[in-house]
């Protein structure tokens, strides 16, 4: 599989991509996951068109904790806001945080993994010790202590890149605490790629280390990075939702986790307001499951393990 990516001829690459896509779409799980992801991406792309601007306490349109009705398809929350409105806007927050955190995580993980694998020796030993630390310490636990401290240092207030500071901190912290297993996988792939002849060839013609890593090794890692990236997104959603649930999110930009936190504080579970806690939870579940399914399908497609004939 990776051989076909090594060869740069655009026609063979196009053919490889085509056969890859048809294989991937052959997975029922991947179809379901992709469909679901497209749905949520549309939601998060144009929430204002679909449900109007985010409702606040001041612009709330309904009564308190009203069950679903034709007016409020998913009912209302404890201050009369429309839950559908909140959930659709929450999609944007949750997905953006998870995707950006994943980008950070993949960049860090890939850089550490390639560097450790390519240079080997002492660099490898120390980078892997660092990786070990992040591997055994769950992202959630690290984020739990780092986030409040960083927030305290920065102070709440101004937005960064359109994010309220707490969300920005959360996404950065998730990103820098969840790269360890990507680094491990990338490292082991790099180790085996390093031994291949085309790397020697690049070295002989005088390519620099950086250019070998970026031009020759990185393209071959794309399959692994993609498959694991999907799993990292699922993990990021989990961590973000949990952190927000514990009150580290931002009520002015409520993600699904923040909505669940608000629902918990409003006693939604004990008063039986199932719609209030049901919708954000199901959304988090659906998106996270979709990424897992797509990730598994990618992994299956890239690494066909089952031998059909002995």
């Amino acid at each position: 599989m990776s051989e076909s990516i090594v060869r740069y001829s655009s026609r063979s690459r196009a053919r490889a991509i085509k056969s890859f896509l048809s294989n991937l779409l052959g997975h029922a799980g991947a179809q379901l996951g992709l469909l679901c992801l497209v749905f949520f991406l549309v939601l998060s792309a144009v929430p204002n068109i679909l449900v109007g601007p985010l409702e606040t306490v001041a612009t709330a349109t309904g009564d308190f904790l009203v069950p679903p009705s034709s007016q409020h398809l998913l009912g209302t929350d404890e201050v009369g806001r429309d839950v559908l409105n909140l959930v659709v806007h929450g999609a944007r927050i949750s997905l953006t945080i998870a995707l950006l955190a994943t980008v950070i995580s993949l960049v860090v993980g890939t850089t550490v993994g390639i560097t450790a694998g390519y240079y080997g020796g002492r660099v490898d030993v120390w980078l892997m010790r660092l990786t070990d630390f992040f591997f055994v310490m769950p992202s959630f636990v690290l984020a739990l202590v780092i986030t409040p401290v960083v927030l305290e240092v920065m102070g709440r207030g101004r937005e960064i890149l359109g994010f309220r500071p707490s969300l920005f901190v959360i996404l950065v912290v998730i990103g820098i605490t969840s790269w360890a297993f990507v680094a491990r996988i990338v490292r082991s792939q790099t180790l085996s790629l390093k031994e291949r002849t085309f790397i020697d060839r690049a070295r002989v013609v005088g390519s620099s280390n950086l250019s070998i890593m970026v031009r020759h090794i990185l393209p071959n890692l794309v399959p692994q990075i993609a498959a694991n990236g999907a799993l990292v997104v699922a993990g990021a959603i989990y961590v973000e939702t949990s952190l927000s649930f514990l009150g580290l999110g931002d009520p002015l930009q409520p993600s699904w986790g923040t909505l669940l936190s608000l629902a918990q504080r409003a006693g939604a579970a004990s008063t039986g307001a199932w719609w209030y806690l049901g919708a954000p939870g199901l959304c988090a579940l659906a998106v996270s499951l979709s990424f897992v399914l797509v990730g598994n399908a990618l992994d299956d497609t890239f690494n066909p393990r089952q031998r059909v004939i002995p």
Partner: protein
Amino acid sequence: MAGNAQEGRTSRIGNVLIRAAITLSMVATLNFVLFRVIPGDPAALLLGGARMSVSAERIEAQRQNWGLDRPLFPDQILDYLSATLHGDLGYSFKFRGRLVSDLIWERLPATIALVGLAQLIAMLCGVMLGLYAGWRRGGAVDRIAMGASLALYSTPSFWLAMVLVVIFSTALGWFPGYGIYSPGASIGSTDKILDYLRHLALPVAAVALGLIGQYVVVARAAMSDVVTEDYMVTARAKGLTNGQMLMRHAFRNAMLPLVTLITLNLGYVVAGAITVEAVFAWPGIGGLTVEALNARDYPVLQGIFLLLGVSIVAANLLADLAYGILDPRIRQ
């Protein structure tokens, strides 16, 4: 030969210990650094919490008393490390004057009960179900178990907890939805245990269900790998029945990777338990974490982080040792 084996074993355990030491020292360093970067004077914070004013003389006196006037490195960090090693985790902001170690110690049993029971149930159900699904890959059990597990795996456990409360507490009234004991009249000891177990049911179910999802997935993967191994073909050629093949050859080999995976998972179990405790107002470490977060009670938060770090590292050590016993290839 024997000498070499002995040496190999020693160096392996040595490596394991070095890794554990490095992880622990990074946890301690992170704790130390995070605590120092918080704006505001620690002495002022400790004396008055973040929001009260205390006279400058008292703060200065306290600074000297606590050695805060000395350089951060190496004096303060060494003090910190030595205090930590002696079990001194400082004082809580929120619960004024209470030792962090006492607070954690009080809350620990409730979490151990919750996590321990959930872990036990999840291992029994999840691992067995997963191994069976992997053994009969593609069968009906496999499909159903795998579908359900992936869904459970993707579900935040606290949301599962909330759903359980809505269904089994609010709607059906079968189990209490929060707390550890029913409030009110003093009752007999057997009733008290029953009451406790009834309160434990939903939190344990919430944590365990999430774990079952994970364990089914990993156990199935481990078993699917074993099923395609050559020694399974040998076992079949020997004329063993399916049951004999499963119990004598597949089971132990499939358990090998699971030992590591399940122990590595401890951090995630506790992480899940923290949010579930928040849902049920369960008076454990998770409840304490939420209280500390809301009050920005950093000493308590650091103490909890240290506790989690130590337990995770200890679990990893155990896993490494257990693996060495289970797998003769490592034992050598």
